[in-house]
């Protein structure tokens, strides 16, 4: 057992004890505390019914075929060309944000909602009418505390409550 090895053993144990007594913890207790994301976070998408010019670019660019053009019944009369509006299928969406970026009238917007749970696959499909109602609210059992992630020199990531 060379001396150098014993020193390294002692150093390893000392670091272990150092962390044993320091009360630093990285965990964010997810259901009780939720992270307040910076704006620009690519969450679920909000659709603005009025400003949409029904150009179909978002359906064309979507890499996962999540955004499709549906015939919206209210506006299309018989005989005339049917009016198509975009609808999203969150089972396929990869949240890449191409549709939001390509929309010429900014009628597709990102929200910070990301943790919504569905029971069936069909619920995840949002035809235009449903898409219009906006993004579903995540249901938490207990009202979670909103925390913001702060980058910190000693602790890497620290979470501060946000009012």
């Amino acid at each position, binding site marked *: 057992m060379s001396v150098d090895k014993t020193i390294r053993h002692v150093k*390893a144990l000392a670091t272990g004890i150092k962390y044993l007594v320091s009360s630093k913890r*990285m965990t964010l207790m997810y259901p009780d505390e939720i992270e307040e994301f910076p704006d620009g*976070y*690519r969450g679920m998408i909000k659709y603005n019914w009025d400003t949409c010019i029904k150009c179909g670019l978002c359906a064309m660019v979507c890499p996962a075929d999540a955004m499709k053009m549906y015939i919206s019944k209210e506006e299309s009369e018989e005989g005339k060309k049917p009016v198509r509006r975009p609808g999203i299928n969150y089972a396929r969406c990869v949240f890449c944000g191409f549709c939001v*970026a390509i929309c010429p009238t900014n009628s597709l917007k990102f929200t910070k909602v990301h943790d919504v749970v569905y029971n069936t696959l069909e619920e995840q499909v949002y035809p235009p009418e449903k898409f219009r109602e906006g993004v579903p609210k995540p249901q938490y059992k207990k009202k979670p505390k909103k925390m913001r992630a702060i*980058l910190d020199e000693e602790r890497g*990531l620290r979470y501060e409550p946000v009012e």
Partner: protein
Amino acid sequence: MSLEERELEVLIGPQHPASGHMRMIAKIDGDIVVELRPNIGYVHRSVEKLAEAKKFLQIIPLVERPSLADTTANNLAYVMALEKLLGLEAPPRAQYLRTLLAEINRIHSHLYGLGIHGVMIGSSTAYMWCFGDREPFIELAQELTGARLSYSYIIPGGVRRELPSRFTEKVEKALRYMENRMKDYFNLYLNNPVTRARLEGVGVLSKEDAIRLGVAGPNLRASGVPYDVRKVEPYAAYPDIDFDIITEKVGDAFARVMVRVKEIQESIRIIRQVLKKMPEGPILHEKYIKAISPKMREYMKETGEVKFPGIFANLRIPAGEAISRVEGGRGEVIFHIISDGKMSPYRMRMVTPSFRNVILFEHLNRGVRVADIPAIYGSLDYFPPEADR
């Protein structure tokens, strides 16, 4: 009795705590591994064939998925190949932003590799620390691009978002945090005599073998071959940044780990230079800025979010052939695109570093002990989906 009877064939298969999504067929005599054959293909998703059915822009998220811990390398290599075919250069500021994201991604991809390797040789603390320390860098990338891992941040002609406000301070804090954490890593894990005993002299890859087998990335540099695409064929902002190639001489498992640890420290240096030398200017090629409606150009100036021109939906790439190479976290990523002027590529060839490192399983595991199999597997930073594509 003859060797056959004493030999035991063990399938360290896809369903095993330390095998990842692949199977290793090991012939074991007592505690010595006579021969180990990797059996890959469990997560093959035929990215190359899929790419032929998608439009050029839709391939960006597809191409990032196989190597999920290090997506920027694939994204950057693919878009550089497109830009060669389109014959346009991204503006300098966009080049710097691409390098910034590539280096942040390299740091947390290396931490991913080190963490997985730690738990494979038994140190759950190294695993928890590495995965915990990835979070600050993922948070930075999330603030810059909006997503945690699959950024799709780089588009033909530039990047998609401007630097958020006070981003440089946050990056500086995260880098300083990583620097003083390195001391604890060295004390508890890297200099730990048990780690040294498990890694030194294990799975030695000589320089000639490394070159002959066509190994890529830190595994190559750990055997003393100073080959790094960022220096050999500089791209993005690397020509104006001074950094050196990290190499080790011995080429054993510990050398590979040390190359990754030192590359983290090197990336920290690079990020600081990138943020200091970042020039002002547009982040999208003016040919595409002109193609956007003036209202949207206003919006872009206000929010710093790039809007796509309409033609991106059906981008036509002029017929031709282009090859681009990028140094990803795990090694050299090569893209070879052949387009025949239509909206989808005629053929897209994607060579990933893990695919080139698979040969090492068979080469390095001859005559080692059973307990060395996970030690060598982890030191290669092998990512099965990236190899199977």
